[in-house]
């Protein structure tokens, strides 16, 4: 990244002697750089301090409360609890199920959206009549407010009596068509399907942008040399897309891990679909067990951090290449 080099140095290197604000003689210059480095920091500080206060302080609070016995329904019993909250989180069947559900929802949603998004991006990366209209139609699911989308899927699509899916089954198979209770009989796939509908456009948009930034003259040359379309895809398109695939996976994961709206709306965490955000929300908001909710929160963050370590390294590589 070129801009990381000191501007004042480049200033003195210029042909015009008066332009370098950092003076010409060494001693004042050193003093200058110290005040200069503070000058550089000042614009950064408001945002940085704000984010530290708003994200790190609450989490510190969560860590402290996780070691406390604190249930709002029993205010007299508040006190130090040691590791008992953590013990309860690790032995609680619901908490462990929440961990598994979070992983299941995130991995399946991100993977399916990624594959579908890539396929659709490839379809849209050609000139055809109505290309713009199809692209616009594809974006629409992402622009529906998540709660509204969840309500739409739950009531207008999944409802066993008058939902669109069962209505279409009746339309195609006649009066005795099966009328499954989608959410009741397969809650997790129902959740994932609704999420995939919203996140596929997201993946598609980033991947399509990646495809369109592909140097086409090289592809053309390969085609002239007789490379098959499949060969071009695997050895030219995919490597070029790698960083876009990684980026969309990283960002998709960040958002889907935290999903609360769909779980809250479509299943309300019933029948083994409570993910960690919903489990913590319930423990804290409904059961008012602050200690246990905080312990679960700490566990979530530690788990996220492990994943994030890898993700951040990947992100670093992506943006380093991008940043030139």
């Amino acid at each position, binding site marked *: 990244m070129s*801009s990381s080099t000191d501007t004042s140095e480049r200033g003195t290197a210029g042909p015009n002697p008066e332009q370098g604000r950092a003076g010409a003689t060494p001693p004042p210059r050193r003093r200058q750089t110290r005040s200069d480095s503070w000058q550089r920091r000042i614009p*950064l500080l408001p945002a940085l301090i704000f*984010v530290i206060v*708003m994200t790190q302080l609450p989490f510190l609070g969560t860590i402290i409360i996780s070691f406390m016995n604190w249930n709002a329904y029993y205010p007299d019993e508040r006190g130090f609890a040691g590791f008992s909250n953590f013990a309860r989180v690790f032995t609680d069947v619901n908490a462990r199920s929440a961990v598994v559900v979070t992983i299941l929802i995130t991995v399946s949603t991100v993977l399916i959206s990624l594959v579908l998004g890539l396929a659709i991006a490839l*379809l849209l990366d050609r000139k055809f009549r109505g290309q713009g209209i199809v692209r616009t139609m594809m974006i629409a699911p992402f622009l529906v407010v998540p709660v509204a989308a969840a309500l*739409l899927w739950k009531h207008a699509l999944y409802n066993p009596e008058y939902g669109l899916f069962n209505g279409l089954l009746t339309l195609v198979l006649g009066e005795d068509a099966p009328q499954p209770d989608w959410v009741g009989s397969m809650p997790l796939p129902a959740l994932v399907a609704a999420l995939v509908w919203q996140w596929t456009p997201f993946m598609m948009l980033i991947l399509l942008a990646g495809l369109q930034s592909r140097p086409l003259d090289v592809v*053309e040359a390969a*085609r002239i040399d007789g490379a098959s379309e499949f060969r071009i895809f695997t050895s030219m398109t995919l490597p070029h897309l790698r960083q876009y695939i990684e980026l969309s996976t990283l960002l998709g994961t960040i958002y889907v891990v935290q999903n609360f709206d769909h779980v809250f709306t479509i299943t309300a965490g019933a029948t083994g679909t409570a993910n960690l955000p919903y489990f913590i929300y319930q423990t804290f908001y409904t059961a008012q067990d602050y200690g246990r909710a905080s312990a679960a929160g700490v566990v*979530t963050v530690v788990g996220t*951090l492990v994943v994030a370590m890898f993700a951040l390294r990947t992100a670093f590589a992506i943006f380093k290449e991008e940043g030139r």
Partner: protein
Amino acid sequence: MSTTASTRGDRTTPATTTQTVGGRTFVQTKPPRRGMLLTTLAWVVGVLFFFPVLWMVLVSFRAETDAASNPPVLFAPVSLEGYRTFFAAGPWPPLLNSMTASVVSTILVILLAFPAAYALSIRPVKKWTDVLFFFLSTKMLPIVAGILPIYLFAQATNLLDNIWLLIILYTSMNMPIAVWMLQSFLSEVPVEMLEAAQVDGAGLLTTLRQVVAPVVMPGIASAALICFIFSWNELLLARVLTSTVASTAPVFLTGFVTSQGLFLAKVCAASFVVSLPVLAAGFAAQDKLVQGLSMGAVK
């Protein structure tokens, strides 16, 4: 692009093109059927993804008895019953709250993120990459892990059910995205031009307007769009921290669907109205949307 464009699926061009490249003549044959097939497939997929949105709009304009039909009908008599019920339920205060929280927090985000991005790109601090990654790492901290102390703090300071609490929280929620995006755009500002402008005696404002703004304005627009959308969509914080006065549109939406009986048209009308600002903003600025979603990595 131009050579491929003509051979790829455009139905009006002949299926066979002959090109002479470097002394070799090569013939590219592509059956027109394949192009047609891919075009049809693209349309089918697009319609499939769009259909639930279209269905929401169609159903919202029906009477409840027509809305809950099985088998479904594509066109039914138009009725505004759903919208009437929705607007009678008092959605304006939550909608206004959502608008206030989204707009004000977006403005605050840009005001704070712009100088920060400047200090991470044009006149970078030492270890600016570490700072940048610190911002990104906070995005990985699940909101739910900090929500309880925020709730207790708000309770103790009487900030529960106050729109300003949401504004501040949305500002911090979106700050990392905005800093990343603006940093990525600002790092494209030609530093040489900045210096040249200074040499020419241009003031700070002139420099900002003529050198920085053209490169950065698209970035600011994308960042603002994405911050607006994420604030407007947010449910968990709003649900926990507001109740009656400061509740937002998504919270109102979850509370709206408690009634028994036929309510499909109502639900669809409500969902459509609440989604409308995001749909409008997103469609109007599709390219900005891509830049925003990729946090500036795609320009």
